[in-house]
């Protein structure tokens, strides 16, 4: 079973994603405190990471950069799921290495589709 780590400081977002993905038979690990995110990702070795941008302590975009620059974690696909909806933000996200840039509000159904697609590329 594929595993996805979701990092967001809003508990209800984590809940939504967790519920939706689990429903889609995907194992989900949620992280609320972004400072712990990296440690958990290293531990869990997920197939996909979904990151919020605006989080206290460590921002999602910093996390994304760190993941992408890491030799081991670098291969894990990252989705940015954020309220920052400006074009310039999206460009920055994609440049940093995000595979998808999804703006809030989002449809959990569509997110699941995207996650599935990304996972099928990772584990065909």
């Amino acid at each position, binding site marked *: 079973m594929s595993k996805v780590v979701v990092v967001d400081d*809003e508990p*209800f*977002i984590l*809940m*939504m994603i967790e*519920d*939706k993905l689990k*429903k889609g038979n995907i194992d989900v690990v949620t992280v609320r405190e972004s400072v712990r995110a990296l440690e958990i990702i290293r531990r869990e070795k997920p197939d996909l990471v979904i990151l919020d*941008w*605006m*989080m*206290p*302590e*460590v*921002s999602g975009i910093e996390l994304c950069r760190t993941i992408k620059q890491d030799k081991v974690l670098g291969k894990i696909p990252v989705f940015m799921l954020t*309220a*920052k*909806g*400006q074009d310039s933000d999206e460009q920055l996200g994609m440049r940093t290495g995000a595979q998808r840039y999804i*703006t*809030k*509000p*989002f*449809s*959990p*159904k569509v997110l699941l589709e995207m996650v599935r697609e990304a996972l099928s590329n990772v584990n065909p």
Partner: protein
Amino acid sequence: MTRSRIIYRLIFLFVVFALMITVPFTLTMISQVKRIVTDAPALKAAQDAGQGMAFGELSSRLLDHAVPYIFYILVMAIMLAIFFSRKLMASLNELHRGSVAIRNGDYGITLRAYAEDELAEVIRSFNDMTSSIRLTTSELRKKDMYVNAMLDPLWVVDDMNRLVDVNPAFVGLFGYQRDEILGFAIDLFITENPGAPKRDDYEVMRHNGASTIYEADITTRHGTRMPALISESPILSDGAIIGKIGILRDFREQRELREEIQRSRDYVETVINSIEDQLMVIDRDYRIVSANHIALESFGEKIIGEPCHAVAHDSPEPCWAEGRECPVRTVFGSGTASRVTHRHVNPDGQARYHEIVASPIKDLSGNVVQVIELIRDVSDRIRHEEDLFLKNRELVALNSIAGILSRSLRPDEIFASVLDKMIELMKMGGGGIFFIDEQNKDMLCQYHRGISDEYVTQIGRIQLGQDIPGQVAMTGQIITTADISTDPRVESSMMKNSGIKGYCCVPIRGKERIIGVYCLFSFKSRDFTPEEENILVSIGEMTGIALENIRLYEKMKDLYNAQKQRRDAEQDQLLSLTAGLGSEGDLRHAMGSVLEILKNIFHADYAWLLVRDSGGVLVLKASSSDKEPEDSVIFQCGARSIEDHSLEIRGPVVVSDIPKDTRFYIPAEISGPLYKTAVSVPMCIGEKAIGVFSLYYLNSRKFDDEELHFLKIIANMLSVSLERYNYYTESVAEKGLSAAVLQGVRDCIVTVDTGGKIISANRSFERLSGIRPDGERGLHLCDAVALQNGNRGLGEALKECLDAALSGNTAARESVMVTADNRRILMKIDSAPILDPKGKITGAVNVLRDISREKEIDTMKTEIIRSVSHEFRTPLSAIVGMTEMILDGDIDAKKEREYLQTVFNEGVRLSNMVSDLLSIAKIEGGMEKITVSEVEMKSFFDDLMASVAASLEKKGAVVSCDTGGIKSVMADGPKLKQVLLNILDNSLTFSDRGCHIAINVKKGDNTITITVRDDGWGIPEEDLPHLKERFFRGRHGARIKGTGLGLFICSEILRMHGGSMKIESIAGAGTEVSVNLPITGPK
């Protein structure tokens, strides 16, 4: 090895070897013979035994032995001799080889010498010979090559002049094949040109076999003839000429050149002989080499070979030695042409002037070898020049005198200057001027030069007819004398003994009479030529007339001055009129004065001025009497008056007898006294009659044309002033209106001229920019703006707009302006050209509008949309995403509630944001109001804590609250709570978990201060000044959600309470927010 004769050596060797072999052999032979001999008994026995002939046998046996031996010995000796003479044999072989090579024509061979013997000598000689042959051969080959390569034809003939050989150039030139012509006489092809110049010893040289060069004509095979230069050299053998070598050179060009030179020479000669000047060629020794026929005619045939100075000056020395400029020497020295004029004296004693132009004749290397002199007789010219010079001098003097006369009107100056000029012109020692006293019939010296005052006093008065000046003054005839001391006409002994010699006395002649005389004298005897006398007479006449003119002028001047005074008086009157009309102020008053003046000038008894109003009715504007009420309407009845008539005919009307003239109606206003005469003058602007003025007289009076003309002028002036006054009044009204508008508007309005200089500016501009147009007048607007408060950017933007406007376009720019009170505002500049009625650009008007607020609102709108849309996204995620999941049936019933709760919470969050936005809108629009009531502190803070309890718990924060014993404050409770909630929320948001927050309330003078202090992240220093700005998100804003509206709303709420908020923070150490409120609420 010593040198030896070969043969001796051979023999010597042979003998040696023969001996070497023979001696041992002989010894053997001897022993053999001895053995045979000793064996004689045996022999005998043998003989005896019948073997007979034993001795003969012995001899034969000996011979048998000896012959082969001897042969052998000889062969051996020869072989050894030959062996030891092998070098000799090698030399012989070499020689043989050499002979074979020579036979085959190979001269390149070099033989080797094996020994130092005779053969070696032979071999060396052989080698020398072959190398010599080789050299010669190569030399010959080279020569042959040269000959063949020569471009000039070359031939060789034998002693009979028959061709022996020719080179390819010869073949090429003549067209014959070499073999065809060999053996033929060279004369067949080349014919000596008998006419060509030759050296004198040419024939001798030819005879003696010396090389010769001569000209010839050649004929080619094709019949072409051409001139050629032949160079012939003999071929000598044992002193005898055995043939000749000839070289031919194409002589066509040279011959043409020579002919050309000859022609030129002929031409030059013709030219030289045809010129009318003398021409000589002179060498370095000043000897005449050649001369043209003019020179020969002039100086005689024998001048060739004579020195030029002897011929021209009859002098034994060259000119330079005698102090004259010598052209020949100059040319030889400088190498360039020289021109001098020499004075020669003819044999008949007459002086002649010769202009000599000497030019160098140079050889090829540029050295001057001869000088060619062109001598022209310029005596006539020189004489004319001298004459001309004299005439010119006179003319100059006359001219300067004429100049003095025309320049000056002061007789003193004129006579003094003229006297000086005359003395200078005539080269006299001095002189004086006597003027005739008509009354006394005598003369007195008034100006003098070169004589003392005492002398003049001594002379005193000269009676007319007395002495020379008296005679001249009487007769008007000039008198000159070469020597006064011997002149019988002189009576005064004083003059005779004064030392004066040359003397002349010239009359100063006016139009009809003699005015005086000029006397000029010199201390040298002096003749006066008729020309000089003529000049002197002319000067006398000129000055006389000038003097009369001056007198005439003085008279005229007096007359003129008298007239001028009269005219000035009139002008003064006019001036007082115009001064009255010139002022634009009180026209009515001015008209009154004008009328008064008019009345005085023309001595009228009554005067009035009527003006047509807009309805065409004549209205009294001024009168000489103050009885009539002003502005009273006259002639309403439409009756015909003098004034009407003058207006109708557009000209002055004079009525000389009013009571009798029944044509006109006399208005009641003036019908009191019985006026006899009236003049009425209309005032018109073009065709438009705007009024009329009239003068009334009690007595009869006539007006001449001049007076009527004067009145017309006054009428014109009055009408112009009236019109101008009307315009002025109108324009003042308009101007006032536009000025009011201009000054009233909030926008800045500046007008500039075409040079960009400020003409005017309204108050807004002055206030905002601090530039006073009066102070900055003459300064370029852009410079003035740029200098003020460092508004360089604005200055540049203005300049762009101005440039556009001054070239006829409108332009608009935006730029930040720092105002006089140091605010930064955004200005929109609109510039447009100001056009005069003809469409010419006379300047530009610039409108500067403060668009900061508009811009701000614009920015705010964008900010709101950006920030709100961002902040709305998260709660919307819950609402959209969760409802979608519920609808999709993803959520079980148990969890559904939790989902709905979240949707609700986030909905509330959204609604709070909208409230915030509305608050802002209200604050911005000035709609936000506060409702002040007593807020009890304790319950207020309890309520506050309860509100934040959940958040505090979530963050693990510890809060202390000290109300400082303050009971209550007058404030809008909910709004104050909103403020504190916002501050607390910020403290929690920007702090780590487990942070500490302390709330303290303190009482000051009429105020309370609520302080909220945390130990959170603090605020970066650069963010501090902007915290209260709308939508400002500090550095933490990058990762913390928020609208950036909270603190703005807080500070606005506090401002409405009459309070304030202060934020102090150290990054990393925490923040302290102090809220200050008046205890009694807002005033």
